[in-house]
């Protein structure tokens, strides 16, 4: 394994320290709970929004804390939901008078931990609601009763509720908005290589030199099928072929499009893929209202990408267009 890492057990804390040191004015770091939060949280004029999940998906979610996005993120170790305590302590520390919204990607471990945390916090008299995100079309709801996975589409839920909270929306309203966004968001990914968790030190799965995994999960979970490598045009067809009929998206729809890198793929390839997808969508009568190209929700160093489509209505589009400021910045 060749990574920038010291002791693999300190991978997450050392990364969090880096984020904190890079953003002294806007962020605070509480090492005891892997917590990164806004320097001005809790803000009692807005609902507090917290995301927890395993680490290894950066910039999600520890780098998406900031004005118009999250108030705090409490990640677990790489690919592991945070321990219960991390969540309950985070909720206690950041709870606002307007309540707390927990954003959780739909995985067994995360569901359990956050359901327990909501119980604990409610018992403490805090107003807490939890929103589960499940945008991954590669896992069929019918077949596996654990339900769909939450992947890069998470960004859109965060952005929309983050903007609405900044504008003063109350907890019920945020839950409504978050559910509405989740309901029109669909994602599927493809892996060109496996990822290597620091503590494991070797690739999580085997992928031949000419193989790709279609429908891969962001923890290296297998997808729909193992396939031979194919040109970007054909990969675009695979992804669109899975996503479009799922909602379904229909010709004439206005959509937001995200081509998300999984960590090891350079942005040049993401834009190449975006260009193909944009043209295919335009050819099928879609209007692209907003686009996103880059790394939003990664799987450590996995080479690959996911495609997310969001069916836009005026409310969602306006919320996505609101300003926001997070650790990830260019200038």
């Amino acid at each position, binding site marked *: 394994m060749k990574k920038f890492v010291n002791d693999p057990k300190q991978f997450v804390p050392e990364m969090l320290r880096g984020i904190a040191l890079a953003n002294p004015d806007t962020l605070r770091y509480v090492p005891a709970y892997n917590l990164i939060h806004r320097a001005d949280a809790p803000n009692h004029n807005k609902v507090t929004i917290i995301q927890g999940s395993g680490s290894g998906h950066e910039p999600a979610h520890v780098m998406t804390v900031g004005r118009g996005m999250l108030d705090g993120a409490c990640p*677990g170790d790489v690919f*592991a939901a945070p*321990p*219960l305590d991390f969540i309950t302590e985070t909720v206690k520390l950041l709870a606002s008078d307007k309540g707390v919204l927990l954003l959780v990607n739909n995985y067994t471990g995360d569901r359990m931990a956050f359901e327990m945390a909501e119980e604990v916090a409610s018992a403490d008299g805090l107003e807490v609601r939890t929103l589960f995100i499940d945008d991954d079309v590669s896992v069929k709801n019918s077949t*596996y009763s654990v339900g769909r996975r939450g992947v890069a589409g998470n960004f859109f839920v965060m952005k929309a509720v983050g903007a609405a909270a900044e504008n003063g929306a109350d907890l019920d309203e945020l839950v409504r908005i978050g559910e509405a966004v989740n309901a029109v968001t669909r994602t599927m990914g493809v892996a060109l290589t496996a990822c290597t968790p620091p503590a494991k030190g070797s690739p*999580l799965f085997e992928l031949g030199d000419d193989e790709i995994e279609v429908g891969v*999960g962001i923890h290296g979970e297998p997808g729909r099928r193992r396939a031979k490598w194919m040109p970007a045009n054909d990969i675009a067809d695979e992804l669109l072929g899975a996503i479009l009929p799922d909602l379904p998206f229909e010709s004439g729809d206005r959509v937001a499009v995200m081509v998300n890198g999984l960590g090891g793929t350079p942005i040049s390839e993401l834009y190449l893929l975006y260009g193909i997808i944009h043209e295919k969508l335009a050819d099928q009568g879609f209007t692209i209202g907003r686009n996103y190209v880059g790394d939003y929700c990664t799987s450590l160093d996995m080479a690959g990408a996911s495609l997310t489509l969001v069916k836009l209505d005026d409310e969602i589009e306006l919320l996505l267009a609101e300003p926001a400021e997070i650790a990830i910045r260019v200038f």
Partner: protein
Amino acid sequence: MTDTPTIDSALANAELVVRTIAEEAVAQEEYFGSLDAVVGDGDFGYSLARGFEFVIAEWDNIDRTDAGAFLTNVAVMITGHIGGTSGPLWGTAFLRAGAHCMGRTELGAADVVEALRGAIEGIKKRGKADVGDKTLLDALVPAVDELEAAFAAGKDTKAALATMARAAREAAEATSSLEARRGRASYSGERSIGSVDAGAVGVAVLIERVATIWPTN
């Protein structure tokens, strides 16, 4: 039930079991991780080891009012320091077992079985899972069944644990033929068939270790 063997000193035995499990979980970190990597995400060993490492580090500070308080305190440490799916599941299991032992200084065989049944119920509820879903329940449930049967057949604790361990191992190996319906492995669907469940094998290894170190007589 005077013919069932009695485990003396509930606290001492709880300590022995927890300490054994904790040390074994730390020792098996890599092996458990490799099991989870086949169709899971490879962190089962890591998660368990970090949690039980903490239990060992805090060993002297654990509440020793009685076996129930001891197990409850361990449960809190586990939920506080194990992430992923295992934190809530294992934490719930220890919490439920602790509840059954609260205020007791001696535990009979029936008490032990009841505490373990409580743990199982907790896991089932928390994980929305049952036997056959290819999880640690597929090792734990038959193992507890066999333990109960062994006690009922008059075996002493050491012998009963040995029977339990054999059952756990056999059942864990048998998960290989199952398709995962819970946890991360379930995303693999049919591809999960052909490899054992990491949690089930983990449970078997830990029970085997407890059976091995259990003092004779």
